[in-house]
């Protein structure tokens, strides 16, 4: 098979994945709006299937391109969505918390939609991008962003829960504040650890490619800003009075920074990272 055939297969898989994510999102909404448990159960299967096909799509693209599929906006957007889905599945398994799907699937769907709008052409890499550190740098970014996506969804639920504490559905399906806080914290911990890997591997790569491990390039600076926001979150949680609501706000702002680092910086600020 030549590379165009691989890409054709990837195209089909990608379309299927998009439809499945959309279906799971609708089902999670049905679960939430109509309080239908069965819908949540089916949504769980659908999103698992989507994840499996999504993994296959990425593998096929990687084989077709002859390298890790992590180098342009399309590849990173679809991998980013994959990362959130992975973290979502892990957290759902660990904390038995299905309602999370209602908040996570829209984020996944938005990213997959963004990916669909990007060019899917496989381009050869410029010399600076031909580095093993790039592979490590971007794969760690996917896990990190995925985990932050989950913490964003959980924190949003935390903030929305206020005033709804006594609704039966919320009582039954949404964990109490303490537990939401813990789940969000565990997701931020994972994301923060990996974001640290991202920044450090990025610095190593920049040092080898450009001769300077930190040059305040906008993308570097924004990843640092994101990292600081989450560091603030971690410290806020240590103080009983700041825990919960205030920390939840920082987790939400943190994810907005993640999105800005990824999409906004390329769109609004020129810099050496403009290619990815």
């Amino acid at each position, binding site marked *: 098979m030549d590379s165009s055939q691989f890409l054709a297969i990837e195209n089909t898989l990608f379309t299927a994945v998009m439809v499945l994510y959309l279906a799971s999102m609708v089902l999670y909404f049905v679960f939430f709006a109509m309080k239908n448990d069965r819908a949540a159960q089916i949504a769980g299967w659908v999103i698992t299937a989507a994840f499996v096909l999504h993994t296959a799509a990425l593998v096929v693209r990687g084989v077709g391109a002859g390298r890790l599929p992590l180098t342009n906006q399309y590849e990173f957007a679809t991998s980013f969505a994959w990362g959130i889905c992975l973290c979502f599945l892990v957290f759902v398994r660990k*904390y038995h918390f299905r309602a999370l799907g209602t908040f996570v699937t829209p984020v996944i769907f938005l990213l997959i939609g963004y990916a669909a709008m990007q060019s899917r052409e496989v*381009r*050869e890499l*410029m*010399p*600076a991008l*031909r*580095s093993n550190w790039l592979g490590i740098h971007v794969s760690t970014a996917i896990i990190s962003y995925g985990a932050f996506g989950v913490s964003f969804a959980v924190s949003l639920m935390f903030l929305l829960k206020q005033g709804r504490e006594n609704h039966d559905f919320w009582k039954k399906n949404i964990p109490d504040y*303490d*537990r939401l806080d*813990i789940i969000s*914290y*565990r997701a931020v*911990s*994972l994301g*923060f*650890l990996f974001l*640290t*890997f991202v920044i*450090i591997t990025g*610095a*190593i*790569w920049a*040092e*080898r*490619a*450009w*001769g*300077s*491990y*930190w040059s*305040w390039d*906008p993308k570097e*600076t*924004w990843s*640092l*800003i994101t990292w*600081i*926001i989450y*560091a*603030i979150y971690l*410290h*806020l949680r*240590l*103080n009983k009075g700041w825990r919960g609501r205030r920390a939840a706000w920082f987790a939400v702002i943190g994810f907005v920074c993640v999105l800005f680092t990824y999409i906004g*910086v390329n769109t609004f*600020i020129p810099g050496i990272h403009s290619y990815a």
Partner: protein
Amino acid sequence: MDRWKKAGRFLCSMKCAVILLVVLAAACTAGSLLPQGQTAAYYTANYAESLAGAILLFHLDDVFHCWWFVGLTIFLCANLLACNVLRFPALRKRMKEGFTATKRIAEWDGVPAAVTAEEPEEIFKRLGFRNVTRGVMAVTRPTQTEAAGPESVPARYAVRHRIGVWGAWLCHLGMLVIIAGFGLGQMFQVQYSVYGVPGQTKPIGDTGYELRIDDFRVKLREDDTVEQYETDMTVTRAGENSAAAGASGTETAETGITGAAEASETAGAAGAAGTFATSETAETVGTVSVNHPLTIRGMKFYQNSTGWAANVQIYKGSELLQEGVICAGEYALVEDMEGLAVVLNAFYPDYVRGADGMPATASSALNNPGYLYTLYYNDRILGMNVLTEDEIITVEDYGIRFTDPQQYTLIQIKRDPFTPVAAAGGLLVMLSLVLAFYLPPEEVWAVQRSDGLWALAGRSRKEGAYFLEELAKYGGKAPAGSPAEAGNEQTE
């Protein structure tokens, strides 16, 4: 005095740290959104007057190097250091003796995660705890009167991941090391760049070394995209290289290449990150390419970029007066006529005139070389135009032409002895975060109730209620028929 103490305590506090981090994040935002390092005129031209004034007043045109940003970073470091120094004794105590069963159980609010007939040691081991301590605990039962005093009951206790206590502390230390390494690097690093075409030898700043470019290759793929840029180069002490430098370009380049091949054979172990070898004449020969820098005599060499150069020839009548290579952006002085100079502003390998009338290149292939030049006489511009391959500029008796376009290589050279310090800090932060988040200290304990069943409890700062659920899962349910007096044990 009291006020000073209060201020001191605030400066060492986490509250202060959070405020500092918020301000630093805001400063970084400003630094990334506002163009940095432009002239004052740029800001006044592009922003409203008051905003431009504020930008200049607060140094927002160079946020990352201005005094208040550096000051805040130093403040954060002092805060971090104070935090670590102040917390050290408590952490050491916690590590050494804080986890005694008595103390923990005395703090326990008495609600067990599970009640079981099974020996707790087995349960704790299944949960992943080793070294379960058996002992007795002083417990006051609610059914007893206060006067009866506590009763000694059998107890079990286990702890794991004590080392995790140090996670945050080491992370703070790592941050201090990174910032120190970066800051010292900024102060003491030296950087040079050398560019040229094969055959040229140029000094590396004031280091006393020279760099000779032996060969430069632009490797293209089939689709004409660049795969790699590679420079073969020789580093020598200034002066030692003079014979080679005087020779004609191509010859030097050739000897350079063979030199490189021989040398790297003798130093077969030089590895993948560029290859180099040192010959007896104290020459160091090596190859650098993008992503594969090379360290020679404490200096690190990077393949940075490339551009176009050309041979410039100056004639008087039909007699060739002088000849030499200049890179785009450089000038050549006409030696025979003081004050006359030509600048090669830009080069277009496949020259076309764009729709807007401006010169452009149709491709990266050398199909139709076009040289954009400016001619000066005593700082006055005599002319500016694009010259193609066979055209000649004439000024009085003089003729100037460009030939033999070729790509030059730009090598960046850097010496920063503090990079390893920052790298060590980075490694420390990564490891410490694994400690802080994934090896948090966790403890479990059990006390035997009056009915002989064991009440299990535990704590984990990370997993909170979920840890207790896990414990309950492993501990199982209370055997049927046992009184459901889950929370009845009162400890003191």
